[in-house]
């Protein structure tokens, strides 16, 4: 066993799934499962490519730069939420509050700027901070009182929803300052209009990928999800790390709130009510295991794009949107089955 490489090379995939981490050899040793995930990622990528090829044969409008730019715009809010969700699911947790926390952040930002005359940039920061506070509350309850993440975030889901409606008095906030909708504006690459928000979303994915795969902080996320007790025995402060993960996720929801505002040009108190399930769907479609410890943020991006491509492609084909919901449902079950098979094999 001691001959096993500490960091598995990228080469032969070895999904050491579900097995506890190797005996701790010191606090610095991390337990990456990255190479196994590369394999799990191929399924979703394959499905995405096949869907693209299929739609390209069905509609001559599908395979255009403008249309792909549109799809990215349409998945940027859910995709960004799904980054935070991925962090939490990798620790074997779940966050039901992400969508309504985002809505709360967007109302805080827009109302402060429009109704209270706070400078827009400060309003944006306060909104992101408000979301991070929700993340802190989630994390503190999960780590401090050992409550299940499902129940804690079900509670904060409702609290954020209620606070959003109380603070906004159920009114949509419009006439936003132009700084707040900047991310919704676009620039040209060749003849294709790309929004700044799409770029920011892709940048966030790149940062999350880097942190999760290239830093000790990221490796600990996997370690906790794989076996929190073993990770603790390795000398890693599991509770502190978990709390930090929830706060970071909250801040990411705050950025999603800004993207949401930029996309719709309004602060909408009714936004985000079913976005928690959409974000979880993207994470699961991307091959991340709900049991924690296995998955990648690149997979999550692919998962979000699968949903976006289906929705867009089916409309271009002239198919009612309800079929997108049907297909997404089937794909989720397939994705979870893949995960289960992989676990059993291990």
């Amino acid at each position: 066993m001691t001959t096993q490489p500490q960091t598995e090379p990228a080469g032969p995939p070895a999904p050491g799934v579900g097995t506890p981490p190797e005996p701790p050899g010191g606090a610095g040793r991390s337990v990456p499962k990255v190479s196994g995930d590369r394999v799990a990622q191929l399924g979703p990528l394959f499905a995405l490519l096949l869907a693209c090829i299929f739609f390209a044969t069905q509609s001559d409008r599908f395979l255009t730069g403008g249309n792909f730019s549109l799809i990215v715009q349409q998945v940027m809010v859910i995709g960004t939420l799904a980054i935070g969700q991925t962090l939490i699911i990798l620790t074997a947790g779940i966050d039901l509050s992400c969508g309504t926390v985002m809505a709360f952040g967007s109302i805080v930002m827009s109302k402060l700027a429009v109704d209270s005359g706070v400078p827009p940039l400060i309003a944006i920061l306060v909104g992101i901070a408000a979301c991070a506070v929700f993340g802190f509350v989630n994390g503190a309850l999960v780590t401090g009182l050992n409550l299940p993440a499902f129940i804690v975030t079900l509670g904060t889901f409702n609290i954020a929803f209620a606070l959003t409606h109380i603070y906004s008095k159920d009114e949509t906030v419009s006439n936003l300052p132009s700084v707040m909708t900047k991310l919704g504006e676009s620039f040209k690459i060749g003849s294709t209009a790309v929004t700044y928000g799409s770029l920011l979303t892709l940048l966030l994915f790149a940062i999350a990928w880097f942190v999760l795969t290239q830093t000790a902080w990221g490796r600990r996320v996997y370690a906790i999800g794989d076996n929190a007790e073993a990770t603790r025995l390795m000398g890693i402060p599991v509770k502190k790390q978990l709390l930090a993960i929830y706060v970071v996720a909250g801040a990411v929801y705050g950025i999603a709130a800004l993207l949401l505002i930029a996309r719709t040009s309004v602060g909408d108190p009714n936004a985000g009510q079913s976005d928690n399930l959409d974000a979880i769907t993207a994470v699961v479609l991307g091959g991340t295991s709900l049991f924690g410890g296995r998955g990648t943020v690149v997979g999550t991006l692919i998962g979000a794009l699968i949903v976006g491509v289906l929705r867009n492609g089916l409309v271009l084909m002239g198919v009612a949107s309800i079929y997108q919901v049907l297909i997404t449902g089937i794909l989720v079950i397939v994705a979870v089955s893949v995960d289960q098979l992989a676990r059993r094999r291990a």
Partner: protein
Amino acid sequence: MWELRRHSARSGPARLLAVGSAAAVLVLGVAACGGSDNGGGGSSGGSGASASGEKVTVGLIVKRESNPFFVKMIDAAKKAAAENNVELITAAGKTDVDNQSQVTALENMTTRGAKGILIVPADSKAVVPAIKKARDAGVTVIALDTPTEPQSAVDALFATDNLKAGELIGQWAKAKMAGKKAKIALLDLAPGISVGQLRHDGFLKGYGIKDGDPQIVGAVNTEGDTAKGQAGMEQLLQKDPNINLVYSINEPSGFGAATALKSAGKKPSDVTIVSVDGGCDAIKRGIKTGVIDATSQQYPQNMAAQGVKAIAAAARGGKKPSGYTDTGVNLITADAQTGVASKDAAYGTENCWG
């Protein structure tokens, strides 16, 4: 090392890839089914535009697919589409207030090359920027049922005249009470929603009274929900057990009120209940049995069908739709009053939705 090898290349990726491709095949299969199911007329497998050269693409975006009001709309739109050589694409939100899904649908339908889009706004204000983008791209946008804020954000509005709907049941109730002293319960929608306010105002206008009239026992918000209608009625009966006239924003809330009245020992003949909507269930369980005495029936099928026709005509060189179009409202009752025009339950059943 043995463990490492056991999991390597062969079984692992192969299995995962196999399931992955199975998933992909499923996607394509279902998509193909969807394609053949859709459209009313002509299969929409290809890109459509080249099919007849004249085919017009129209989008219909409703709030939610599960509500019978919108089901009727979609059915009527499909029928009108088949008759007018229109390819119809439908979309809906996940909830009644799902603005994001409606925005996404507007964008995708615009990319698809829709000439016009009919939309029942989930959020009258929040959807406006997305509608503007579609119109800037040359799409004609018509709001159905619910106006946008401002109403000028769309090319045209096809909807029920809700003030008139309220007025009709107000006039009928006035005639029915025939000078008897009324004790009125008002089961409203929710604050700040124009549809509810217009029906409320219309009822009072038709009855010839104003807010604050001593005949009004009280007003409660029901959100158009049966359980909340029942709870609201129970509260008002606590305030005054002699209520003999109930205005309800829609039939579900009216049925809730009827349940509360029954529990309080009242007979249907003791209390007059009037409502708005004219859903099939309401005609069958309400009007025919006398549980609900009169209702103003609205016609979602007209909104959708007239919308499809208007866009098709405009796309073929006709006049672009504009302004407000009243899609009609009729008083339905089994107890006609002289001086108030009404239709009977049979007419109501024939033209109901749901």
